């Protein structure tokens, strides 16, 4: 009997604290798969955010630094410059990357730091209990915009990935999802490309993964994937925004 699929060795057996069906878990698994396939464990450094992925270091068996809220790109910049042959990546959520850490995100990308940024966009603050995020859609209800996001009260969703694509320091900017088998394969390819770019020092890579928060959205994982496809993907369309430094 041939084994056609098993979880990567680098994803250990610790039960992840994520809710059932969480996109974070799936992307952690992809990160572990890619690192293992590339064989770069001994020169990889991951930077975890503050947010749901704060405990990423418990699950993926490489060396990790836990950053202060929003500062992961600054941390990664330093690590990559000090260890130029290493693969250095951040793993961040929307609040961490596109709100409290917007400055660090844009500056690190614009400096062309040779890092990979994995950005999980689920349009909500999961860890703190479902508050409004910078990427919360117009009209979307959260615990701090219980009547739905309104422009006059809350401003607009931030298109951080589109901004990233305009920066000269980025070489690769893409938006993916993990809601079906085909999209998971695309996301994995994107992560691998971003990681390879870091090793090859091609500039900053930015992989947005449009994801779900079934607990925060108060849905089953299946419903959440459907809601994401119906509501988020029209607003955050999937595909490459920039490849090899060329805008698409």
């Amino acid at each position, binding site marked *: 009997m041939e084994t056609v699929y098993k979880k990567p060795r680098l994803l250990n057996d610790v039960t992840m604290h994520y809710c059932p069906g969480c996109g974070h878990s799936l992307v952690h698994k992809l990160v572990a798969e890619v690192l293992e396939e590339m064989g770069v464990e001994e020169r990889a450094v991951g930077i975890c955010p503050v947010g749901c992925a704060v405990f990423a*270091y418990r699950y993926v068996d490489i*060396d*990790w630094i836990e950053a*202060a809220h929003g500062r992961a790109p*600054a*941390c990664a*910049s*330093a*690590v990559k410059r000090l260890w130029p042959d290493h693969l250095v990546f951040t793993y961040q959520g929307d609040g961490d990357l596109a709100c409290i850490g917007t400055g*660090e995100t844009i500056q690190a990308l614009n400096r062309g730091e040779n890092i990979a940024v994995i950005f999980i966009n689920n349009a909500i603050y999961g860890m703190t209990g479902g508050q409004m995020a910078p990427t919360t859609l117009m009209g979307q209800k959260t615990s701090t915009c219980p009547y739905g996001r309104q422009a006059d009260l809350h401003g607009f969703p931030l298109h951080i990935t589109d901004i990233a694509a305009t920066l000269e320091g980025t070489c690769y900017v893409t938006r993916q999802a993990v809601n079906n088998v085909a999209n998971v394969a695309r996301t994995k390819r994107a992560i691998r490309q971003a990681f390879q770019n870091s090793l090859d020092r091609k500039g900053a890579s930015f992989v947005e993964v449009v994801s779900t928060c079934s607990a925060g959205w108060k849905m089953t994982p299946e419903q959440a994937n459907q809601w994401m496809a119906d509501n988020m993907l029209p607003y955050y369309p999937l595909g490459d925004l920039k490849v090899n430094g060329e805008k698409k």
Partner: protein
Amino acid sequence: MLLKGNEAIAHSAIRNGCDGFFGYPITPQSEVLETLAVLKPWETTGMVVLQSESELASINMVYAGGATGKCVMTSSSSPGVALMQEGISYMAACEIPGLIVSVQRGGPGLGTIQPSQSDYRQAVYGGGNGDYRVIVLAPNSVQEMADSVGEAFRLMFKWRMPVMILSDGAIGQMMEKVVLPPFKPRRTDEEVRQQCPWAINGLGLLSRKPNFVSSLELDAAVMEKRNRAMQEKYRAIEAEEVLYEEYMLDDAEYAIVAYGSSSRISMGAIDQLREKGVKVGMLRPKTLWPFPEQRIGELGRQCHALLTVEINEGQMVRDVRYAVAGQCPVEFFGHSGGVMPSPEEVVDKMESIINNR
């Protein structure tokens, strides 16, 4: 070599095998980054020099760089160091080595750009959250600025914690003759691996458990255990690393306690008072934490009164009073920054203490 204090920091960092400097311009310390930019150590020793987007980014670069086992530093001045407090707290919590050079200017807020010592409390007691300490070195000359860098690097790796060089705009900006330390090569990756087995750099991962640094611990009992272990380390530092210098204390009936720029002013005052026959000396803390509490306590027994001279509105004086524990009066004299105390004012203050006894 004739150098500014800030320039001496830059030269000394390169010569002490520093791996990386991450900083943001702010008066009166910008010469540190400027000097590094001119010296281009990335072409010689391979040292990384990066102008970051903010002090917030700088300190987090130091946090992460230190976490990988590299010898890294930043420098800033008062409002910038205020912005760094969060990162310093994280460094202390995760026991990460790193050097912060603080070239003080007057505050609060934007304050003045002239010299001040009004960040004594910020340095010694910290503005970040939690029960933590930072080793604070207090140079009072350009030579000591140069020397303190190597000492800070040694201490930060020995104790795995942030170390601060607390200087001020006067020492940072003044030019003096300085003998720079000899060149010491940066550590190789293999040396980093051997000396910092705790570090986050992937080296040897396949034959060891993964490393991580995190200050988060949801189990309160585990958190307390971590904190208690850190406190034990702090007690050991207090026992081992106190540094101070004495000036004419053997027969002193009165003593001044002053550090950094105000110690130089005080020395002038002591010379004038000695000429008038007053038996006065000075204790100069070279480490503000750990603080020379025990020696100051002894001076409290020996002297009729102690005087702290500071370029602030009275910060260190409270620590001196604590050390003296009521054995003799402890007075304070100072100006709040920019306006500097003169030796003559210090003489007048000391004479009034003596006359009012």
